[in-house]
C-alpha cells in the first residue's frame, strides 16, 4: 500500500486534511497523574498540540466516512518503507540483534525496563529513565530522550519520525511522543484515554485508543484528521508488507473496504487450533512486556496477512506456531498440520515471512525455517543467551530450497522424543496425528516411540491408548511381547503389554496367543495389565496356552482378595481355560469354585461364570489402565 502525501514534502495535502477536523467537544480531562506523566517527558517540543477532539468519543459519524475515504486515497501515494528484517534479543542491560538476511550481529548496552519494539527500521526501547532509538540493521544509537518512569506501550516509525506511546506507572495517564530523527520532540500528547501502539506514515500518526478507535493525527499541524471505529479490539497500529493494520485479536487492514464497512468490516484472525485455541494476533498493548519470555511468548501462533492487492487472508496460505521447543507449520485454511520441527531450545520469539518462519530461541540463535517441510534454511547467532526476543520480518522473502523435507512421521517422532512435561499437550496432538495413519509402519513407529527411553513420561497413557487402538502391524506387536525384544532393542522402557494385548485381541491375531500367554505369569506386570492380557487370551487362546492359563489360575486364585484387577484376571483366565482346557480345566475351575480357600471375589466371579458365560470381548477402552477416570475393576467378566 502507498500512503497519502502527508510527509513534510507535501505540506499542502497535510494541511487540507488537517482542516478536516472532526468538530467534537474535547473530552479531555487531565488528572494529577497525567500532569506528572507529562512533566516526566522533558525536552523541547517542536509543535503546538491541539487536543480538543483527538480522543473524543463524540464525533460526527457522517463526516467520518468522507474524511476517512479522503485519507485512504491520499495515503495511496505515500510509500510505506519496508520494515527491517531483524531479531533483537533482550537481557538485563543488553540488547543483541542480528539481521535475518545475514548482516552483522550487533549489541547495545543500556539499562532496560522491558523488551524493545521493532518499528519500521528502528528499535525503540526504554530503560534507566531514557527512551532510545537504534538503527535496527546495526544497533547504532540514533537518539535518546529522558522519559522518566513511563512505561513504553509501543512505537512506530516511518523512516523519519518515531512515535511512541507511554503509560504512567499508575496506569492513569497516557502520553504520545513524536520524535524526529535528530531526537527533537515534534509532538507530545497527553490523555487519560488508554493508548495503544501507534504507527506513523508520512507524518500522519495513527493512534489506537480506547481499545476500539484509531485517530489519524497530523503531526505537522497538530490536528486530528480522521478517526475510525474498528471491527475488532485494537490496541495496535502497525505497518506490515506495505499496508497499515489496526488490531489486537484480529487485524483489520486500513483501506477503502474498512472505511466503507466501518465497524462491520471483516477482520483477519489467526487460525483456531485445538492446541493453541483462538489466539490473539497481538497481545494487548497495555500488557507489560518483561525482559523474560513468558508462556505467551513460547506458545504462540504466527501468520502474515496477505499482501496488499490480494484478497484478504493469510500470506502463502501459511501459519506457524510454537510450543516451547517445537515449531509447527500449519495450513490456516484447514488447520491441518504441515510439519513439525523439534528444536533443542525453547523458542521465545518468531515471525512469519514470505516463504517461511523465523524463530528466535533462548540461547540466542535465530533460525529461518522453510514454509514447506520446516527445513532449516539458515541459522544466526545473536551473540548471547536472551531472556526474550522480538522478531520482525517484513520484506524478507525466501524461495524454497527444493530439498526434500523429511517425512512427517520422522519429524513427529523426533518431537515426541523430547522428554519435557511442558510439551505434553502438543505432543499428544502429534501422537494423535501419527496414530491416525492405519499402516503397519505407523504401528511399528508408535511402538518404537513407546519403548524409547527418551520419550516423554507424561505420554505413558497416550501411547497406551494409541497402541491399544491399532488394527495393523500385528507382527510388530507380537515381536514386542517376546522376552528377546528388550535385549534386541536395548530399550529401557518395557512395552505397554496391556495395550499390545488389547490391539492383538482386536485384530484377532491368533499368532499372538503364545507370546501373550508367556506374559500372563510375568510377575513384573501390574495387575491391570495382566487383566488385559488375560482378556486377550480369552479371545485368542488355544489348547497350546492351557499350561500358562492353568498356572496363572492356580497361582492366583487364592491370592486376589485385595487386588480386584487380579481377581478379574483370574476369572477371565478361568473362562479361557474352560474353553481350551478340556475336562481337566473343568475339574480345576469347579474345584476352585467350591474351595473355601479361593479368594472371595474370584469365587463370586466363578459363580457368575459357571452360571452363564458371556461371549469373550477385549476390555472397553474406558477401563484401560492409565486413563483418566479409570475405576478399579471388579472381578465380574467384561
Amino acid at each position, binding site marked *: 500500500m502507498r500512503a497519502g502525501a502527508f510527509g513534510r514534502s507535501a505540506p499542502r495535502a497535510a494541511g487540507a486534511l488537517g482542516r478536516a477536523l472532526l468538530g467534537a467537544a474535547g473530552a479531555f480531562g487531565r488528572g494529577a497523574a497525567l500532569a506528572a506523566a507529562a512533566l516526566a517527558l522533558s525536552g523541547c517540543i517542536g509543535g503546538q498540540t491541539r487536543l480538543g477532539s483527538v480522543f473524543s468519543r463524540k464525533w460526527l459519524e457522517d463526516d467520518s466516512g468522507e474524511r476517512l475515504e479522503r485519507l485512504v486515497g491520499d495515503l495511496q501515494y505515500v510509500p510505506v518503507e519496508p520494515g527491517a528484517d531483524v531479531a533483537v534479543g533482550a537481557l538485563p542491560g543488553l540488547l543483541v540483534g542480528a539481521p535475518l538476511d545475514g548482516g552483522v550481529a550487533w549489541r547495545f548496552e543500556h539499562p532496560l525496563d522491558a523488551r524493545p519494539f521493532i518499528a519500521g527500521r528502528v528499535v525503540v526501547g526504554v530503560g534507566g529513565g531514557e527512551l532510545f532509538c537504534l538503527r535496527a540493521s546495526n544497533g547504532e544509537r540514533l537518539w535518546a530522550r529522558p522519559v522518566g518512569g513511563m512505561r513504553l506501550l509501543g512505537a512506530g516509525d516511518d523512516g523519519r519520525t518515531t512515535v511512541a506511546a507511554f503509560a504512567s506507572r499508575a496506569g492513569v495517564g497516557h502520553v504520545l511522543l513524536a520524535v524526529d530523527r535528530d531526537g527533537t520532540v515534534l509532538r507530545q500528547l497527553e490523555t487519560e484515554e488508554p493508548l495503544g501502539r501507534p504507527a506513523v506514515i508520512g507524518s500522519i500518526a495513527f493512534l489506537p485508543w480506547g481499545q476500539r478507535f484509531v485517530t489519524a493525527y497530523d503531526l505537522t499541524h497538530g490536528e486530528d484528521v480522521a478517526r475510525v471505529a474498528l471491527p475488532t479490539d485494537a490496541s495496535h497500529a502497525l505497518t506490515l508488507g506495505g499496508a497499515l493494520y489496526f488490531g489486537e485479536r484480529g487485524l483489520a487492514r486500513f483501506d477503502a473496504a474498512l472505511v466503507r464497512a466501518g465497524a462491520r468490516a471483516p477482520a483477519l484472525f489467526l487460525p483456531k487450533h485445538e492446541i493453541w485455541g483462538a489466539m490473539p494476533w497481538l497481545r494487548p498493548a497495555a500488557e507489560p512486556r518483561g525482559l523474560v519470555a513468558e508462556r505467551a511468548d513460547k506458545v504462540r501462533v504466527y501468520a502474515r496477512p496477505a499482501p496488499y492487492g490480494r484478497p484478504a487472508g493469510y500470506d502463502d496460505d501459511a501459519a506457524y506456531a510454537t510450543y516451547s521447543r517445537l515449531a509447527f507449520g500449519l495450513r490456516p485454511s484447514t488447520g491441518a498440520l504441515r510439519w513439525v520441527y523439534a528444536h533443542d531450545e525453547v523458542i521465545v520469539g518468531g515471525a512469519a515471512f514470505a516463504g517461511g518462519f523465523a524463530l528466535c530461541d533462548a540461547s540466542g540463535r535465530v533460525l529461518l525455517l522453510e514454509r514447506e517441510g520446516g527445513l532449516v534454511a539458515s541459522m544466526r547467532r545473536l551473540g548471547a543467551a536472551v531472556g526474550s526476543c522480538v522478531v520482525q520480518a517484513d520484506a524478507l522473502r525466501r524461495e524454497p530450497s527444493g530439498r526434500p523435507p523429511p517425512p512427517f512421521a520422522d519429524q513427529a517422532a523426533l518431537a515426541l522424543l523430547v522428554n519435557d512435561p511442558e510439551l505434553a499437550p502438543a505432543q499428544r496432538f502429534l501422537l494423535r496425528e501419527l496414530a491416525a495413519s492405519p499402516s503397519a509402519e505407523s504401528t511399528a513407529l508408535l511402538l518404537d516411540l513407546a519403548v524409547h527411553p527418551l520419550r516423554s513420561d507424561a505420554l505413558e497413557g497416550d501411547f497406551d491408548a494409541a497402541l491399544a487402538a491399532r488394527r495393523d502391524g500385528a507382527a510388530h506387536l507380537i515381536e514386542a511381547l517376546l522376552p528377546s525384544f528388550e535385549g534386541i532393542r536395548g530399550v529401557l522402557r518395557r512395552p505397554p503389554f496391556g495395550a499390545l494385548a488389547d490391539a492383538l485381541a482386536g485384530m484377532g491375531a491368533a499368532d499372538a496367543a503364545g507370546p501373550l500367554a508367556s506374559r500372563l505369569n510375568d510377575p513384573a506386570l501390574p495387575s491391570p495389565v495382566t487383566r488385559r492380557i488375560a482378556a486377550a487370551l480369552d479371545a485368542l487362546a488355544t489348547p497350546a496356552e492351557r499350561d500358562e492359563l492353568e498356572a496363572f489360575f492356580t497361582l492366583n486364585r487364592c491370592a486376589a482378595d485385595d487386588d480386584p484387577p487380579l481377581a478379574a484376571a483370574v476369572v477371565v483366565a478361568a473362562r479361557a481355560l474352560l474353553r481350551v482346557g478340556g475336562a481337566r480345566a473343568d475339574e480345576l475351575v469347579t474345584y476352585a469354585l467350591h474351595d*473355601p480357600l479361593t479368594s472371595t471375589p474370584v469365587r463370586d466371579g466363578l459363580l457368575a461364570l459357571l452360571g452363564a458365560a458371556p461371549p469373550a470381548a477385549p476390555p472397553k477402552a474406558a477401563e484401560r489402565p492409565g486413563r483418566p477416570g479409570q475405576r478399579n475393576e471388579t472381578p465380574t467378566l467384561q
Partner: protein
Amino acid sequence: MPRSPLRPNAAAALALAALAALAPPAAAEPPPDLRAIEARLRGRDPEALAAALAEAARAGAAASPLRPPIEALAARGLPPPLALAALDALGAIGARESVPLLRRYLRHRRADLRLGALRALRRAGGPAAVAALRPALDDPDARVRGEAASALADLGATDATDDLYRALDRGVPEAAPALGRLCHASACDGLGGRLFAQPFSLLAPGCEALLFRPAAEVPDAQKVALLRRLHDLPPADVHRFVAGWRARWTGSPAVAEALARAAEVTAPARRD
C-alpha cells in the same frame, strides 16, 4: 470386604510353626506321624493345613512321603501364607521331583513366594533347579535376584557365569561373589575387566571369593594379575579391602607378595 481364608490365630500358629521348623530338631524328638499329617493335608481347614505343613517342614527329608500331597496342594493353589508353608516344606524335603512345581512358583506375583520357591530350589539342587534359577536373575524384585545369584553359586552352576555377569552389569551385587566362587579360567577375567567400570565396593566380594579359592581352581598367576589391576584404582576405595585380605592370607608367597604390594600402592599418603 474380602474375607481372608486364614484367621488371625491360624496365621499366628503358622508363624510359630515356621519358627519351630527353623530350630534344630531336638535329639529326643519322636518321629513325625506322617499319616496324621497327610490326613490333615487333605482337609481345607487353614489352621490344620498350616500346622501340617509346618510339621512336614520340621520333619525335613523324613517327610518325603508327604511330597506328593504337598505338591498337589500347592499345584491347585493356596493362599500366600499356606503356599509359603508348602514351599518351605518342599524345600525341607529337598526332592528334585519338586522342581517343576517350584519353577512355577518362581513366577508367582508375590515376591515372598518367589523367594520361598527359590530357597526350595536351592535345597533341591540339580541341573533342572539351576535351569529354573537362571531366569530369576532378571526378577523384578532385588531380593529374588540376589538370592538367585547366591543360589547359583551354591549349586556350582559354572555354566551360569554369562548370566551372572549380565546380572552384575544390571546391578545385582550378589552376582559378584557368586562369580568369584564359580568362575574358571578365562571366565574369571570378567571380574578384573569390570574394575574400571563398576564401583570397587561392588566387585570386592567377587575378588575376595576368587582370591581365597584353592590354587587348583584359580592359579596364583591369575590372582596376582587381578591384584596388580588394583594398583590403578582409586586407593581410598581399595586399600581397606586389600589390607583385610592381606591380614587373612595364609597361602602362596607369590600372592602374599602381590597383596603386600597392592596394600602399599593403595595405602593413604603418609604425612611426613
